[in-house]
């Protein structure tokens, strides 16, 4: 255990999920707190950064286990009693057009509840064990919708511990995009990246006086000019010797609210991009989404169409800087990152989502060639600076990591 080898006195504990997207502010927070990660794999990563840290599962013992299993069993019994009612309500609300499994929820609902109840009860028991041993100063999450992070936030709120949501990315659901769990936040405070994100969560019902704009800590690295390659350097490193370069940002299927035509849209978008690359005699850099997507599909498509290109989930700054224009499948946050790095962008629209700013350029696949050309010709337009500021208030200087740490310390006194 990292703590056992560290002679420094204990600090108050700050709970974090431990997702790498938030690691930019771990070091700053570790100067004030002992970090305790929900995800045990984060401990090794933190150790590699020479950070003092704990993992919540270090507080797993036989008492916590027995308590959790007993609680979960009692909850599952209630679910059995309610299964018929739930199944009936679900079927009625879905008007017979739902997936067939939803018409027989009583056959699986209680087991599904048991699984979740065990996970939450164990998490709660470990948090209780931790609270018995150490003072918990607060909880900072990159999202509070998934079961484990939401469970941790709700446990803290139930115990009077401050909770802070630092969204890992802006969500571009349109106001008319229908209900979606991403509009919800359960934390006491939201540290928003910019005006857009503040307004997004305020529209979702979060008290606006509990939203502080601090910029996007995830994007701070893009402002380290000395670490960012020039266009020429990026093309040299990527071994691209061509006048025209397009970067295509792939996406992944977010299944918490399926809209549009899913995989068919992605196939259409890829096909349109490949067609455009041939029309422009361009090299195509496919920057696939770090969360998912099958790179083999891209590889197969490029091979079958004899399209010169590169496929990568990494090297974002090189992929963007090497490109004349970036085209995203949907309103991806990579468009903001591209604007910060000076590369104009466009995106292929999808149902329910859009940027709230006039930029980036956007269209369906039918007029993608015109849209991409308009975007490429807009390089250097000052409007891109306004766009970047709208989504990242720290633009053009960066420095959001420090502001995040300052605000957390202020709120977790």
């Amino acid at each position, binding site marked *: 255990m990292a703590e056992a080898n560290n002679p420094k006195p204990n600090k108050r504990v700050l709970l974090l999920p431990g997702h790498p997207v938030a690691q930019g502010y771990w070091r700053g927070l570790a100067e004030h707190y002992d970090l305790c990660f929900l995800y045990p794999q984060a401990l090794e990563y933190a150790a590699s950064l020479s950070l003092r840290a704990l993992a919540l599962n270090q507080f797993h013992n036989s008492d916590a286990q027995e308590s959790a299993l007993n609680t979960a069993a009692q909850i599952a019994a209630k679910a059995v009693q309610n299964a018929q009612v739930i199944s009936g309500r679900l079927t009625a609300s879905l008007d017979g057009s*739902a997936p067939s499994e939803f018409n027989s929820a009583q056959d699986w609902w209680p087991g599904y509840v048991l699984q979740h109840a065990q996970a939450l009860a164990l998490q709660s028991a470990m948090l209780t064990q931790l609270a018995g041993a150490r003072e918990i100063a607060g909880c900072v999450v990159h999202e509070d919708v998934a079961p484990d992070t939401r469970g941790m936030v709700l446990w803290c709120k139930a115990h009077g511990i401050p909770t802070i949501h630092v969204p890992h990315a802006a969500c571009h659901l349109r106001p008319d995009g*229908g209900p979606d769990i991403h509009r919800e936040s359960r934390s006491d405070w939201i540290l928003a990246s910019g005006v857009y994100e503040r307004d997004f969560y305020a529209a979702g019902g979060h008290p606006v006086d509990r939203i502080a704009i601090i910029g996007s800590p995830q994007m701070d690295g893009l402002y380290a000019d000395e670490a960012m390659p020039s266009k020429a350097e990026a093309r040299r490193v990527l071994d691209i010797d061509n006048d025209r370069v397009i970067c295509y940002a792939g996406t992944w299927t977010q299944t918490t609210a399926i*809209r549009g035509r*899913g995989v068919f849209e992605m*196939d259409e978008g890829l096909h349109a991009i490949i067609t455009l690359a041939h029309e422009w005699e361009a090299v195509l850099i496919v920057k696939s989404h770090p969360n998912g997507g099958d790179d083999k599909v891209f590889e197969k498509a490029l091979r079958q169409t004899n399209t010169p290109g590169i496929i990568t989930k990494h090297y974002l700054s090189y992929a963007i800087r090497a490109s004349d224009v970036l085209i995203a499948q949907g309103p991806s946050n990579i468009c903001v990152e591209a604007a910060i790095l000076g590369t104009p962008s466009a995106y292929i629209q999808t149902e329910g989502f859009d940027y709230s700013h006039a930029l980036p350029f956007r269209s369906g696949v039918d007029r993608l060639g015109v849209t991409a050309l308009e975007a490429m010709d807009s390089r250097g337009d000052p409007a891109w600076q306004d766009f970047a500021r709208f989504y990242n208030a720290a633009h053009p200087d960066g420095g959001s990591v420090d502001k995040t740490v300052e605000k957390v310390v202020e709120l977790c006194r």
Partner: protein
Amino acid sequence: MKTKAQLNEAVYHTASEWFVGLGLMIDDIELGDVMKYDVLRVSGRLMEREQQSDGRGEQSKTE
């Protein structure tokens, strides 16, 4: 027949109102609220699977 967006909305409201309303509490935490994301995720996965199993997906992938 409901559209996918309408189905999403119906599942969302079911998860928001009825699952939470069951009062499945663990240490003052509403289990239904914690499960909500996964209920939506599973629903979406099932809808996605149905969409892909109707044949259009395979055709699209082999173009």
